[in-house]
């Protein structure tokens, strides 16, 4: 696969052409004084210098709410299969790592057609981080750069972008960039310098152990006082879940139409911090205490999910939960470090 360089003007022309084609293009844009992924209708609105988006690009593989099937009451059901193609432009490496993890989770065991169909229809263009966000700790989680999942990797080296095609799909797209030149050694060196800088500096909070140490650390931390201490301030609002690129739990509800004979089955994001997340038949709630739910999220990230995907830690260090938590208690680094102190 090719590695080339393009000027910023050439890249903008490429984006403009994409936007004007019949292809749906999603990219990062300003939203007030923050950033969000949204459908791109103007190449000038694309902001590859963003720090972090309010929600991760997860919303394009697992939307906030989606219809799984349409049914007749006590009759036939028809699965709804998403098939919209899109180019997702400007995903940061830590978010790419999160999508890679979800790809594994949704394809293992019961293959999730809805998720996987969406995923297969997306062309992902990753861009290396230009502006670190206020709470990023990707360096601590080894996610400041990524090496798989994307079709194209883009790195801002100042006056130009280094563009690496990683798949056939990516290669085909790169071929449409007018003026792309084969990257010289000096260009890839510059790219390496950007990535090495990110590996060192996307670290506003420092985890005092290797991510791979977390499952063992948590093994002994179930009754640690930190869970109660932190959860005292927890509103159980699920903001930490909502903004998390690796939280993938959902709730399923049936909705009936006005004819009272047909309806649809919909799934929407759920969150393990919400008070009724673990309520089951008979109205039994097996995680009724705030502290139990608070602990559960940190166990999911550091122990339970890693157990399903070869030890990969399900926290990618984006820092969104730290910013989103009204009570300022969600920082995973602070909690894991506290567990180490008293372990």
């Amino acid at each position, binding site marked *: 696969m090719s590695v080339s360089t393009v000027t910023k003007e050439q890249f903008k022309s490429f984006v403009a052409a994409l936007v004007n084609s019949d292809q749906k293009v999603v990219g990062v844009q300003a939203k007030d004084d923050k950033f969000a992924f949204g459908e791109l209708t103007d190449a000038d609105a694309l902001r590859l210098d963003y720090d972090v988006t309010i929600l991760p690009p997860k919303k394009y593989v697992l939307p906030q709410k989606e219809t799984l099937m349409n049914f007749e009451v006590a009759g036939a059901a028809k699965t709804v299969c998403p098939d919209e193609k899109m180019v997702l432009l400007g995903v940061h490496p830590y978010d790419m790592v999160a999508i890679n993890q979800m790809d594994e989770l949704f394809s293992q065991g019961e293959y999730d057609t809805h998720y996987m169909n969406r995923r297969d229809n997306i062309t992902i263009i990753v861009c290396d981080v230009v502006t670190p966000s206020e709470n990023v700790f990707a360096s601590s989680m080894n996610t400041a750069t990524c090496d798989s999942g994307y079709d194209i990797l883009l790195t801002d080296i100042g006056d130009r972008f280094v563009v690496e095609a990683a798949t056939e799909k990516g290669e085909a797209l790169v071929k449409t960039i007018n003026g792309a030149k084969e990257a010289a050694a000096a260009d890839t060196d510059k790219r390496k310098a950007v990535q090495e800088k990110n590996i060192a500096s996307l670290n506003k909070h420092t985890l005092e152990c290797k991510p791979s140490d977390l499952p063992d650390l948590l093994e002994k931390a179930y009754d640690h006082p930190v869970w109660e201490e932190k959860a005292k301030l927890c509103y159980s609002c699920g903001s930490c879940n*909502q903004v998390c690129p690796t939280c993938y739990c959902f709730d399923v509800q049936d909705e009936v139409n*006005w004819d009272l004979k047909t309806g649809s089955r919909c799934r929407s994001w759920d969150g393990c911090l919400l008070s009724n997340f673990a309520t089951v038949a008979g109205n039994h709630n097996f995680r009724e205490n705030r502290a139990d739910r608070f602990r559960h999220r940190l166990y999911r990230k550091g122990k339970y999910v890693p157990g399903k995907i070869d030890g990969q830690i399900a926290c990618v260090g984006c820092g969104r939960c730290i910013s989103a938590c009204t009570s300022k208690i969600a920082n995973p680094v602070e909690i894991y470090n506290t567990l180490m102190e008293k372990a």
Partner: protein
Amino acid sequence: MSKPRVAIFDFACCEGCQLQIVNLEEEILNLIDVVDVVEWREAMSEQSHEYDIAIIEGSITREEDAKRLEVIRSRAKILIALGACATMGGLNKLKNNFDDLNEVRECVYGKDGQMPHLNTFKTKACDEVVEVDFKIHGCPIDAAEFAQIIRSLLVGKTPFVPDYPVCVECKANENICRYEYDEVCLGPIIRAGCNAPCPAAGRECFGCRGLVDNPNVEAAQEVMDKYNLTVDDLKQKLVLFNSK
């Protein structure tokens, strides 16, 4: 099977929640396809004493209203409280913050305050007077949520009403948190289901859907400190819709 008979009644309120039902517009035709609306003062002139589902809008502020609600309850199989006034007393409970209701009457109505029809007691939500089967929250209610709850009941399904805070929907919609602007927002303790229109419009949550079942009120002091706000700031926001 004959269609369930539905009656809609109003008490102390602005009738805006009924108006939200009217605002269903063409969907009203769907509604009357599946139910017989036998009484609805805002939309028709017929009246009836026979109905299966009673929908109550407004809060209860007078002896005669309490009696009327009791009669409605005795006639209905299902009673639904519609909107903040009915579900929790709503804005009308603002007056409950005053000790002397006579003073309130005089302040609001002047010399007419002593007229007999203004002889009100402290505002009550419907469930402080009779048993309420379902609540449709909000000021005003959300027409789409109303429709979904009615359809669920008609097929014998327990309607889904969230017991999680507004933050869930607010975050899902990528609104910027009002606390980032050091504003008091009631979102973390107020029941969702509205889809967070106020934060989307750049305003804090005013709490019109009432508290979640288990709000973390103990957290208030420490959390407000983090934003240089006070518990009083929070309480003042709660007065509007969540007075006792």
